[in-house]
């Protein structure tokens, strides 16, 4: 089986079959990270470039490890130390990299659509590691993988995503993916942080967190970006935590044992309490699964006869 495109730019429009293929493939790659010798020769000799215009620990390290465990050569470019500081454009940067015969370019950028812009102009496979407020497909894939691993399936379950949905590419990718796989998605947050029209994406909107998480199988907490307070989107961190934070008492009121997720990095005591994060969440499993999912994506994108590029 193959993916239908040379790139992974977003979950929107992906068929359930394709998502399932990635998740199934990721399951076998997870084993590689459990072995003593965490390496397979699958992408030997391939060149993978991490082109990150925004800061990242988790995602970048995850992609780097995924590539290295597949025996690829991985280069990290963080633009703060590159010629981008001299004003080099996105396209020039990418074309110069491709001139060095890259195979896969992984892009994180603050502009929505930047990865697609590059994908149309480059022969390399482009993977979107997060673009603006648009999508973060590998995060949604690892989230779905984690949910499927813990609950056994994705169709028919209910997932509540809580937090700053308006500015969250993680939320968007997850909504596309979870609905495609047959899950029911609820979004919850202060009205200032819920984009109008999000119901059209298939998500049910809640402004009361207890209602939103009641009976949910999985609760996904999003990071509150504290800068948004300066923009007047919420009155204060303590009030936010009281209304939309996940603490032990609120988790108990869910009514069943739901899995608790967070894409990281988390603000302890704000959107999630330390107790819940440390004792009742699958946050670290998400990180482990992230490497496996990214290995699967690189594997599926890298094959294929040169003749059909």
């Amino acid at each position: 089986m193959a993916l239908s495109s040379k790139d992974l730019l977003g979950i929107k429009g992906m068929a359930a079959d394709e998502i399932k293929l990635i998740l199934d493939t990721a399951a076998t790659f997870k084993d590689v990270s459990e072995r003593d010798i965490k390496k397979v020769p699958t992408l030997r000799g391939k060149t993978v470039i991490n082109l990150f215009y925004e800061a990242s620990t988790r995602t970048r390290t995850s992609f780097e490890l995924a590539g290295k465990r597949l025996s690829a050569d991985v280069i990290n470019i963080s633009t703060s130390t590159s010629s981008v500081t001299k004003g080099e454009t996105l396209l020039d940067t990418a074309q110069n990299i491709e001139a060095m015969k890259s195979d896969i370019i992984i892009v994180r950028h603050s502009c929505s659509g930047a990865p697609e812009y590059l994908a149309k102009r480059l022969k390399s496979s482009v993977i979107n590691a997060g673009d603006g407020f648009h999508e973060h497909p590998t995060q949604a894939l690892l989230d779905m993988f984690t949910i499927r691993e813990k609950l056994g399936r994705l169709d028919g379950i209910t997932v509540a995503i809580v937090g700053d949905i308006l500015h969250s590419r993680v939320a968007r990718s997850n909504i596309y993916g979870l609905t495609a796989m047959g899950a029911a998605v609820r979004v919850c947050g202060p009205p200032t942080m819920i984009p109008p029209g999000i119901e059209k994406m298939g998500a049910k909107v809640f402004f009361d967190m207890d209602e939103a998480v009641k009976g949910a199988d999985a609760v996904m907490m999003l990071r509150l970006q504290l800068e948004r307070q300066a923009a007047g989107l919420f009155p204060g961190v303590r009030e936010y935590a009281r209304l939309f934070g996940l603490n032990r008492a609120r988790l108990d009121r869910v009514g069943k044992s739901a899995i608790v997720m967070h894409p990281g990095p988390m603000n302890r005591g704000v959107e999630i309490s330390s107790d819940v994060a440390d004792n009742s969440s699958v946050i670290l499993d998400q990180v482990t699964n992230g490497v496996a999912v990214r290995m699967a994506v690189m594997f599926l994108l890298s094959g294929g006869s040169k003749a059909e590029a």
Partner: protein
Amino acid sequence: MTNSKQKALILDKPSIDRAMTRVAHEILEKNKGAKDLGLIGIQRGGVHLAKRLAEKIKAIEGVEVPVGSLDITMYRDDLDTRKSQPVPQATDISFDIKEKAIVLVDDVIFTGRTIRAALNSIMDYGRPKRIQLAVLVDRGHRELPIRADFVGKNLPTSAREKVEVSLAEDGLEEKVVIFEE
């Protein structure tokens, strides 16, 4: 399901069983018993056959030999030239292969490239004492210097033909047949 012509039945259910019984005896003979033996079936054709060999060895020698399964997709040499990537299956080797006499098991040996991939993969799990190869069918046309130690049936074929092994564990009628493409 196939647009291939002509079919010849090479082995039926009893013949497959007799061949496997003989292979089990040969494994025990060559290794002077079942001490330190470990069987690893190559996904997907060799997995069920490896379990069967383990059962036969238990019946003959009274020893329970560990069985594992190995997926070689990540070690293939043709990932660049295929139209689509194969979906990897499970690799499950729950015993330590260090200092073990490993017998790789597959249904058909053809070009030998699968076995080359399996050897590279096994070495990443540890250092076995030795590795031997048992196959149900050897159809010739080796492209690498690789040979099986134990063969159920030697079957000269033409490169155009296709050999198909169907096993009861997969819910199929048990047989080995040749198709002409």
